């Protein structure tokens, strides 16, 4: 009912009679399975047999959310009937750990086919929360840790899947929570997660999601390191020089500009939505950073005149720079008018925005 990327078949290509009959047969079988499952659940038959029927049905249609609820009702009942430990190599469903790991394994294959299906991700989280409530601590912890590996694999298949990124952040938070309450040595995973984003953006500078996650991790990272003033400024400088290098490599990449804007936004103390990187900035520091970045970007114009992101960034930063009291030593309002006219030429789609921008020029 909401298909993406499926080519349209023209009206003349009607199904052959044979295909039509096959489809009708399939419908009959599917409807039969649906009614058996619903009937047996309504009768309270919370058995292995019915659980298997829900597996079959959900494999065919993972979007059928009510069946996921039925499956959880059956599992919840079984959890009350079975021991919470057992010989792990056994394949039987006769204990809770096997039931849970069996379900988790099946879900991996579903997630590979349907990495954007909300219900599958939900069921997986539900299983892990059940595991923590019902299983011995170490067994439950092993399961949470195993998830990090799984989500790493899924992100290597689609590095922008926002379900997977959200899941990753959630898993990390759970592992941190668990190790804070237990005796485990690692109290924070923020260093490892930060390194992970480094690895991801090195593999592909256009990975917007990885840049996003990096922007969220930096404040935590600095707190975790108990970074002093110097360390914080070093961090900011290192990030700026890395991103300037990336801009020089490919100024047409939107993700890189996103991260540059993030760094610039941390300069002004008025931005309270996110923690600043350097906490002791004076007006002079701010102006200095603005000048450094604006001049750095202006340099790229020498070789690249047809990249709209450059003009957008220059205009945005120049306006902020004047707002905090910058002077016209390094660039003038005439420069800004020229950047704007280049922008208008390169990006006519957003004409209305450039009109509003021009109106905001109050000099």
């Amino acid at each position, binding site marked *: 009912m909401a*298909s993406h990327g499926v080519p349209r078949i023209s009206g003349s290509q009607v199904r052959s009679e044979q295909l039509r009959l096959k489809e009708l047969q399939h*419908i009959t079988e599917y409807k039969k399975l649906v009614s058996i499952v619903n009937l047996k659940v309504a009768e309270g038959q919370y058995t292995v047999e019915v659980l298997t029927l829900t597996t079959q049905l959900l494999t065919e249609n993972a979007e059928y*959310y*009510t069946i996921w609820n039925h499956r959880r009702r059956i599992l919840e009942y079984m959890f009350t009937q079975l021991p919470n430990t057992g010989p792990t190599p056994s394949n039987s469903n006769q204990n809770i750990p096997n039931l849970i790991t069996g379900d988790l394994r099946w879900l991996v294959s579903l997630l590979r086919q349907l990495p954007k299906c909300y219900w599958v991700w939900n069921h997986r989280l539900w299983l892990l929360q059940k595991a923590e409530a019902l299983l011995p601590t170490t067994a439950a912890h092993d399961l949470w840790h195993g998830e990090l590996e799984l989500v790493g694999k899924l992100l290597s298949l689609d590095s922008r899947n926002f379900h997977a*990124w959200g899941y990753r952040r959630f898993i990390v938070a759970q592992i941190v929570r668990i190790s804070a309450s237990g005796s485990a040595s690692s109290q924070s995973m923020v260093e490892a997660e930060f390194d992970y984003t480094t690895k991801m953006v090195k593999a592909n500078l256009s990975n917007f999601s990885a840049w996003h996650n990096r922007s969220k991790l930096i404040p935590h990272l600095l707190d975790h390191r108990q970074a002093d003033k110097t360390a914080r400024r070093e961090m900011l400088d290192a990030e700026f020089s890395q991103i300037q290098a990336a801009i020089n490599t490919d100024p047409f990449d939107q993700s890189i500009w996103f991260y540059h804007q993030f760094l610039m936004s941390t300069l002004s103390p008025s931005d309270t939505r996110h923690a600043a990187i350097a906490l002791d900035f004076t007006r002079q520091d701010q102006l200095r950073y603005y000048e450094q970045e604006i001049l750095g970007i202006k340099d790229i114009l020498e070789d690249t005149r047809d990249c709209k992101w450059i003009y957008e960034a220059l205009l945005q930063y120049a306006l902020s720079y004047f707002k905090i009291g910058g002077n016209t030593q390094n660039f003038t309002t005439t420069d800004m008018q020229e950047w704007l006219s280049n922008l208008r030429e390169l990006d006519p789609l957003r004409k209305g925005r450039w009109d509003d921008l021009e109106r905001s020029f109050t000099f």
Partner: protein
Amino acid sequence: MSLVSGPGRGGMTDARLPRELRLFVDKHVSYIQSLDTRKDELEYWLTEHLRMNGLYWGLTALHLLGHPDALPRNEMLDFVLSCMHESGGFGAAPGHDAHMLYTVSSVQILATLDAFDDLEERVKGGRQKIGHYIASLQNPATGTFAGDEWGETDTRFLYCALNALSLLGLLGLIDVDKAVEYIQSCQNFDGGYGNRPEAESHSGQIFTCLAALSIAGRLDVVESDRLGAWLSERQLKNGGLNGRPEKKEDVCYSWWVASSLAMIGKLHWIDGDRLASFILNCQDPDGGGIADRPGDMVDVFHTFFGLAGLSLLKYPGMVEIDPVYCMPLAITKRILEKPDVNS
């Protein structure tokens, strides 16, 4: 029941526009009418979990096309009420569990059909029941909402709650301030919103957060210049809109991005004519319906969001849509401007 489009109704007549700018009103109307008759297609059965949403999409699309009576009112009403549970929640179809997603669609359909009185007649205290079901899904500590008793939380459900409760006149049942605080915690430096705190900005979530803030009367917390800039960059050279940076264009984002821009008064930051032609290009001129991209298979979801986008862009002859509720503006006005609302 009128199924015929008279001249001048429901879209500009074909002769006055070049083919690529035409809206095939009659084709879309019959496409939507045909949806419930496709029982010999497996897809019909595999999408039963979307039946209630499908009805909301189809019915609202018909209103936008100027054919509000093209589906039988009583049958729709019977269907919706047959999906209501004792709890006050609605499932996607009879026998499906209750969930926020279908509850809001049900309320929207009832509102569009002007059927709140029918509801009370058939289910005593029905309005209050629905209100209490929705309110019970709010987490009092964080202000956010779960989709159902199994606990998934997402800003989508928060929007659904505010949408339905305000239509029912029952916003007083929940802690709106807490809900607003939660939305603020999902805001990113780029002005956008994710589905949870720390999540990447996403056009769909931005729509739900802005619309929820609009209903709460709190658009003042939006960083509209930054957000407007981010949203306007969603328009690609082909005129279509994508949902996140570096992604492909898709008709459904015509709605989520454009309505968000409209809510912050910056719809003029994209090229409306180019967007309209992109959507029109995604029509199936023979069978009716609109696809995600030109040449693809149509479905009711993209048909609806494509038409909603065109209505927002004031395509000639279409009925105007409310960017907050995603319903015909005349209908939300009728309901929300009633003097006894929220009493």
